[in-house]
């Protein structure tokens, strides 16, 4: 988290707000916590599960992403991802393991998810598991930035600019520093800010990067990654190793960057149609930019 200006009290208020948001989203939407609300939904075997407004929002965000991408981003990949071996926090996933027999088959489909906002319930059919993964992380970034900005402004008595970055998903709130927020766009969110990649500046909204090079694991001779194509139920076979998108919110940027990975060669046209600035990197490092995203300096 970055805060533009303010005293230590402002920073502390913003930090506390971010931590509260992260704790809340983890308790609601974590696939790896047996006590999360999402785990209860996935275990409910078709029964309506009472959940918090936060999980309702997270599921609705995921369903919106599915609608807008014609199902290329789909929260019903949960069971497939688990069977592929990504069944716990990634730091605990064994990098190697015995071979898996993989069968291409589409995932159940987001249309099966029932959200009853009035009753405060979410229902998925037996055998269907939700993975809110990337969309929940992006939602957490947006919510945390909003909460941090509000908390900081409450202490400072004036609007304060904040940037929240969660695993590569960035949301900004409030007035940006002069020249904007400088962000390094690269393959791995754990890279240092002075590492390889492109330096860009954003002033509002969100920025998300999806890629296939970081969360990877091996089962037998097959290399797997975490971005599953709902049409096949298998890790996306894509021409892009990394796609970064800027949008009015981190959620929108994340929906588009994830969809672009799965869309493959069709991604630039799809992003252009949605007027979303983006940077797409092929496996050989070739960079394509669309909708006003600045070209790399070296290109």
């Amino acid at each position, binding site marked *: 988290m970055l805060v533009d200006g303010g005293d230590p009290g402002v920073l502390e208020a913003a930090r506390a707000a971010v931590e509260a948001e992260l704790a809340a989203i983890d308790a609601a939407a974590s696939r790896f916590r047996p006590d999360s609300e999402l785990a209860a939904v996935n275990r409910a075997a078709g029964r309506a599960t009472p959940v918090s407004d936060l999980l309702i929002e997270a599921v609705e965000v995921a369903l919106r992403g599915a*609608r807008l991408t014609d199902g290329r981003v789909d929260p019903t990949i949960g069971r497939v991802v688990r069977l592929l071996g990504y069944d716990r926090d990634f730091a605990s996933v064994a990098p190697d393991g015995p071979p898996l027999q993989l069968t291409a*088959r589409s995932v159940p489909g987001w249309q099966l998810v029932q959200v009853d906002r009035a009753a405060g319930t979410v229902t998925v059919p037996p055998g269907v598991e939700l993975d809110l993964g990337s969309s929940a992380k992006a939602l957490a970034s947006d919510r945390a930035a909003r909460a941090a900005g509000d908390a900081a402004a409450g202490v400072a008595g004036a609007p304060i600019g904040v940037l929240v970055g969660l695993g590569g998903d960035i949301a900004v709130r409030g007035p940006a520093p002069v020249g904007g927020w400088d*962000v390094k766009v690269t393959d791995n969110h754990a*890279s240092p800010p002075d590492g390889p990649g492109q330096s860009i500046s954003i002033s509002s909204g969100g920025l998300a990067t999806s890629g296939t090079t970081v969360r990877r694991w091996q089962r037998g001779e097959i290399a797997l990654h975490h971005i599953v194509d709902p049409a096949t139920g298998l890790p996306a076979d894509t021409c892009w190793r990394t796609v970064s998108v800027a949008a009015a919110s981190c959620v929108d940027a994340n929906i*588009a960057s994830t969809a672009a990975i799965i869309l493959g060669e069709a991604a630039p046209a799809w992003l252009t149609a949605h007027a979303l600035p983006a940077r797409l990197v092929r496996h050989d490092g070739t960079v394509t930019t669309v909708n006003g995203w600045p070209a790399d300096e070296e290109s």
Partner: protein
Amino acid sequence: MNPAQRDEGLRRVSTTTRLVAVGGIGLAGVLTAYVAKAAPGRNLNGTSVSTGGDQATSGQGLPDQSQVQPGIGNPDDGAAPLVPADTPPVRGRGRSAAVSGGS
């Protein structure tokens, strides 16, 4: 009633029955389409779902997509569109303090 009159009456009843049946099917289709469009993402069909075993291959045990009611309206229906940022990103000054990368 002679046989010819009886046969004519039966034909009329049969035709009427077929028309009612076709009309009913058509009405059901219209209502189904209306409901599907009015509540996208909330429809369930009557598919039986195999929970399968975890030793299954990645796709086994999942509901058969062919049994899922497809095409519930336009995928964009009812969803706010993706929104670009107020200002697009510009080239940075090389003093990045944050990183956006794959995770």
